[in-house]
Each structure stands twice: as structure tokens, then as C-alpha cells.
């Protein structure tokens, strides 16, 4: 009996979904195009060959060796050799280079005579990623330059090779980037941004689908299809969405973990489970929004606000502990945040499942939200009002 009611409701929704192209766009094409776009945009992992200029004011054999050193690092591509600082700054303003390296006049002579000399490097840090990368690379070169000059000087002055070694680098630092040794940007960005984009589409489609019933005056018929039960009406409406969105979500995972071989250091089933719960949690949030504001425009506006701010408050790029407390607190009510934490713990770092238990509980807790507004939603469906 109950099964029949549900089937009836599901059938009605399938009919609705197939009536309009926009659902195909919003549910399938948009999330997948975001996936393909982001992963292909950053397929190289790091933006290598950053256009850089050199201002070599000394131009001796030694300084040319430094320039060759610069060229040899994979991040740097010397595109311009200019004769003064102003010219380099001009190139930067025109967007042709992202940084430059300056070797001062009489560099070689002063260095060899033991005077204090200085090289300087500039990056256009308003472009964050190439700026930071270039900084790292230019810093390495300047350190190496310093080492080369000093050791030449010391050996000339009669020091032994061993003494020179110890004097140059008394403390050696080695860095191990756990699970992402390539510092691959797409691994870092796509794993959080693509599911968050999926969440945005789930919120919008769910709100659109529920509140459209009110707009088009079909909400009573919708309730009637499940014999007046709001719960069954919602279940019937959202079940087909759940299936489609989960399939898209799993495709995203399959593409990233399977096809692109992004790190997956846990059991695959954990991530699959997380994705399905994540989809349902987002649907529950959208139902809650529709229940509070049973008006198509408002429900969509709030879903849109919520979905877009998730990208920032979810703290996928800027850490939560640095944000102001009044803002950071909102991260607790964002499903994407929990999915991201599960991903980081499980797929990326491969920690035991025990440490992620609360994130799963939190995602599941979202499922209670619709029950809080069930009555209000039913009332709105019985008396549909459309305010444009």
C-alpha cells in the first residue's frame, strides 16, 4: 500500500523531470562540466614555465651563470632580458611577466673582493599562485647563488671543502608533502570545489522543483498523488533526484579517483557512502529552506546564497581557524564542509575511520531538518501563493 503511494509519487516526478530540459542541464551537465573544466584547467598540477624577466646589470661570466641557473628551474621561463628596473615593472604592468630577478652593477667584482652584495627578486603577488611559485624558485636560485659565491671565496682564501660545506648549510631541511608530493593543485582544488558545485546544484534544483509546484498551482495535485502525505510526497519527489545526483556524484569520484588517479588512501566504499549521504544532506537542507520560505524566488535566493558562500565558509582554501569566529561558526551548518573533512581524513590522509566519525554523524543530522518544517510546508502546498 505504502509502496504503491510512493511509486505513484515517483512516477509523477519522473514525468515532471522529463518535461523540461533545464533539469538535464542543472542535474547532469552542469556538475560534470564543472568537473571537466576544473580538472583539465589544472591538469599540469602546477603552472610551470612562468614568464619571468631578468635585469642583469653586471653581465659577467658569473652573472650569466646565475641566469642559466634560473632558466634551469622548471617553474621559470625567462621571456625577457631587460636593461633596467623600470622596464621590468612596465612589463609586469602589461601582464607579460609575473616577476623578475635583479643582479646589481659590479656584482661579481664586489662579491669576489668580499664586499657585501645583494640580489633582489620581485614577484607580482596579486596573482597568488604564480607569485608564490615564482618566489620559491627565485629564492632557491638566490640561495644557490649565495652559496656558490661564498664557497668560491672561501676556497680561494684557503678553506677546505669540508669546512665550506659545514659553513654553507649547517641545518638541512627536508619536506615531505603527505599524500600529494607533487603539490598538485587539482588534487587540492577539485576534490572540494567540484562536490561543492554539485551541492549548489542540488540545493537549487530541489528548491526549484518544490517551489515550482506552488508557482504553477500544481501543489495540491502533488500532495494528492501521495494521498495527502507530505512525507511521501517529498520522498517521491526527491528520490529520483537522489538517484540522479548520487550517480553524478559517483561519476565525479570515479573520474577523479579512478581515471585521474587522485590519491585515494581509504576504502572506496567509505567515499561512496560519504557521497550518497552528502547528496541527501543537501536535499534535506533545501527542503528546510523551502519550508521556511515557501516562495520560489526567496527559496532560490537563499539556496543560492547558501550554496555560493559554502565555497568560502567551507574553508577549502583559507583555513577555518583563521576566520572570524562569527563567520567560522557557519561552517558547522554546511554539508560540503563535512564532505571535505571526510575526504581529507579518509581519501587524502588515510586516517582510521574512527577519527571521521563525527563528520558522518553531522551529515546524517542534516536529515532531521525536513521534519522540522513538514507542517509548514504542507500548509504552503495546500494554499499555494505565487509572488513573482
Amino acid at each position, binding site marked *: 500500500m505504502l509502496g504503491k503511494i510512493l511509486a505513484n509519487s515517483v512516477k509523477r516526478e519522473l514525468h515532471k523531470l522529463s518535461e523540461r530540459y533545464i533539469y538535464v*542541464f542543472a542535474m547532469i551537465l552542469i556538475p560534470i562540466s564543472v568537473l571537466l573544466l576544473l580538472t583539465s584547467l589544472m591538469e599540469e598540477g602546477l603552472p610551470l614555465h612562468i614568464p619571468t624577466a631578468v635585469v642583469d646589470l653586471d653581465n659577467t661570466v658569473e652573472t650569466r651563470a646565475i641566469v642559466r641557473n634560473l632558466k634551469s628551474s622548471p617553474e621559470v621561463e625567462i621571456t625577457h632580458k631587460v636593461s633596467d628596473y623600470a622596464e621590468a615593472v612596465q612589463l609586469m604592468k602589461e601582464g607579460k611577466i609575473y616577476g623578475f630577478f635583479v643582479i646589481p652593477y659590479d656584482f661579481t667584482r664586489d662579491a669576489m673582493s668580499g664586499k657585501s652584495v645583494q640580489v633582489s627578486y620581485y614577484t607580482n603577488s596579486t596573482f597568488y599562485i604564480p607569485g608564490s611559485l615564482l618566489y620559491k624558485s627565485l629564492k632557491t636560485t638566490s640561495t644557490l647563488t649565495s652559496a656558490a659565491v661564498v664557497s668560491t671565496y672561501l676556497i680561494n682564501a684557503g678553506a677546505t671543502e669540508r669546512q665550506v660545506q659545514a659553513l654553507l648549510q649547517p*641545518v638541512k631541511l627536508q619536506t615531505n608533502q603527505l599524500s600529494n608530493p607533487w603539490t598538485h593543485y587539482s588534487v587540492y582544488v577539485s576534490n572540494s570545489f567540484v562536490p561543492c558545485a554539485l551541492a549548489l546544484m542540488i540545493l537549487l534544483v530541489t528548491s526549484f522543483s518544490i517551489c*515550482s509546484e506552488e508557482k504553477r498551482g500544481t501543489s495540491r495535485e502533488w500532495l494528492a498523488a501521495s494521498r495527502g502525505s507530505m512525507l511521501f510526497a517529498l520522498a517521491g519527489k526527491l528520490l529520483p533526484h537522489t538517484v540522479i545526483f548520487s550517480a553524478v556524484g559517483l561519476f565525479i569520484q570515479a573520474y577523479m579517483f579512478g581515471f585521474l588517479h587522485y590519491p585515494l588512501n581509504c576504502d572506496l566504499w567509505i567515499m561512496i557512502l560519504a557521497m550518497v549521504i552528502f547528496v541527501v544532506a543537501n536535499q534535506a537542507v533545501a527542503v528546510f529552506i523551502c519550508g521556511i520560505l515557501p516562495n520560489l524566488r526567496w527559496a532560490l535566493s537563499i539556496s543560492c546564497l547558501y550554496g555560493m558562500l559554502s565555497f568560502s565558509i567551507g574553508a577549502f*582554501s*583559507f583555513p577555518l581557524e583563521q576566520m572570524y569566529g562569527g563567520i567560522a561558526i557557519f561552517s558547522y551548518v554546511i554539508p560540503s564542509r563535512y564532505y571535505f573533512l571526510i575526504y581529507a581524513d579518509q581519501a587524502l590522509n588515510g586516517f582510521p575511520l574512527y577519527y571521521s566519525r563525527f563528520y558522518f554523524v553531522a551529515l546524517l543530522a542534516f536529515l532531521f531538518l525536513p521534519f522540522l518544517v513538514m507542517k509548514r510546508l504542507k500548509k504552503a502546498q495546500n494554499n499555494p501563493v505565487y509572488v513573482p
Partner: protein
Amino acid sequence: MKIAGKFINDVFRTVHNEFLLAMKDKGVMIFLFIVPLLYPLVYALIYNPELDRDVPVAVVDRSRSTKSRDLCRRIDASEAAMVAGYAADMEEAKRFMAEKKCYGIVLVDKDFDRNIGRGEPGQVTLYCDMSLLIRYKSLLMALTEATMDLGSDIRVEEVARLGADAPSIPATVGSAYFPLGNPEQGFATFLLPGIVILVVQQTMLLAICMMGGAGYERRRRNGGVDPLDTVGSGTVPRLFGKALVYLSLYILQLFYLIYFVPAIFSYPQMGNLWEEFLMCLPYMLGVVFMGLTLQLFSRERESVFLVIVFTSVPLLFLSGVLWPTFGMNGFLRFLGGCFPSTWAMQAFVRMNANGATLSDVSHEFYMLWLLVIMYFFMAFIGNKISAYRRHVKVRS
């Protein structure tokens, strides 16, 4: 003369009509006024702390010597990192990490002190969580500074120990680093100038497409005729009139976005305000005509949410402000180039942060005008086609 008169008359009629329609529509007003006013503020507040300070690390000190403790003190004292605790071994440190008590592990080698005493390099290893790259950046910076500082102190000791036999150490080659355009290397300073420009395009497109959807709904209800539309005006004056309405409705918000938001949060403002305004003119025109093209596909007021909102994320990436354009393949660069926001963001960011003049961003400026022309023709042709279709439909 008569033609010119009708043209001007048509423009004014469209302006009058479109202006009233927009002002009466609450949804459109939200997009045109509330969103551009509040969104940048919210974003700026989220990222306002700018830097990732005091990232917690756990220390596994196998050396337990004066030198290793000195190193830990230096790490703790740095701006970017702090020592959250000491672990007995790597297993315990890993547990700290799983419990989110730290995001990095510093392992000091057992022979750290002895090696340094012997005149060999002492080994320090950093294991870093990679879920957020900004944390990795902070930790790397803190550790590099701490080891280098300790290194130079050791060097002084070493020289003193070698005594009179030691060669006089030359002043080593110094290096100076100048991050231009974003001296603090802050997150908000880099992200927000791009966002404020993107907001212009996204809100305008949403508003214009919502107007289009509303018009379509009116036509559907009234047998293919929009009762609130102007009658008998030509396509070109209609497009000009509409563009005029949206430009004038948005002028204050633009001023707020490109001048006040950076001023409130004291981001670099190196550019000339009027040149920035001038750069935004083709940008806004391009966006309006793009909107007037996309408007034709809009069948419902609210469906714009479903197809336009999400584009903000891909467009932010395609703009080249996050990920540099030289690292993209040809197709993606072309795709990004089709949107006015890409060129305007590039131009504005360089003007605002690097003090580029309008002539320095001339390439972007020309591309923006090219897009204006392109989208104008697309809007023109699209409007002609849909008007013809409507005509056929109404007659039959």
C-alpha cells in the same frame, strides 16, 4: 531627419519602459542593488584575516639537545607556525594529526646535535598535511626561516671555533624579496579585486535574464504578446535603450565596488579611478549585450538561478586571476576569452594592484570592445529571429 527622430524617440520609449519594469520587479532589484552591495562585504569579511598564522605542528625531537630545543623555540616564535606539542615518536605525532591537533610534524634527527658539532649538516624533516595548501605554505616558510636562522648562528659559532685559522667570512650574498601588488601576500588582497569585478557581470546577467524570463511568461499568458512591451520600436534603439537603462542603474554600484570596497578593507589602490571607470565602460556594455542575448533563452524568471549562478566558480578560474592563463590549454583560454569578466578582471587587478594605466592594459581594453561588438550583433540577430518567430506564431 525623420528616421533620426524616430530612433531617438524609440530609445527614450524603451528607456522609460524598461526602467519602470526593472524598478517594479523585486527580484531584479535584489540582483541589481542588494547583491552587489552585500556580497563583496561578506567575502571580504571571510578572508579578511589575510594570512594563515600560527599553524600548529607537533615536534618529534629525537635529538633532545640544546640545539634541537633552540630550533623548536624558533619555530614556535615564527609568525606562521606554532608548536602545538611534543610527541614521543612518529606514531604519537600521527595521532595528533588525525585528531587535528596539528597539521604538520617536525622530526629532528637523532644525530642533529652531534652532526652539527662534527661540522656536518644537521637533518630536520617536515611532514605536512596537504588538505589546504596555504597551511603547507605557512609551515614551509616558518621552517625555512627557522633552520636558516639557526644555521647562520651556528656558522658564527663555527667560525669562532675555528679560531685564527678560519678564513674571514665574506658578507654572504644577501637577497631581498619584494612582493609587488600585494605586499602582505594576503588572501583577501589577492582574491577580492577579482571578485568585485566578477560580481558586476554575474548580477547584471542574472537581472537581465530574469527580465527576459518575466517577459516570456507574460507573452505566454497573453497569447504571444507582451502587454508591457513598447510597440513598434526598432531592434537597434531597443537594444541601446535597454543598455542605457542597465548602465545607469549600475553606475553607483560600480563606483562602490571598484572604489569603496577596496578602500574599506584597505587593499592596494594604485590605479587611477577614472581610468578604471573607463575600462569598465566596455565591460559593462559587453555584459549588457551578452545578457540581452542570453535573455532570449530564458523561459522562466526563476530558471536563471539554475544556469547562471554556478558559472561564477568556473569563471573565477578561467579569468587567470587564480590560475594563470599561460597554464591553460587553447580551448579553455578561448572559452574564458568569450566572457567580458575575464578581460576586465585581468585589467582591473593589474590597474588596482600594480598601478597599470589604461594604456598598459590596452590589449584587454580592445578585447572588451571586441566583445561589445560581437555580443551586440548576437543580441541584434537573436532579437530579430525571435521577433520574427513571434510574429509568425501570433499570425497563425
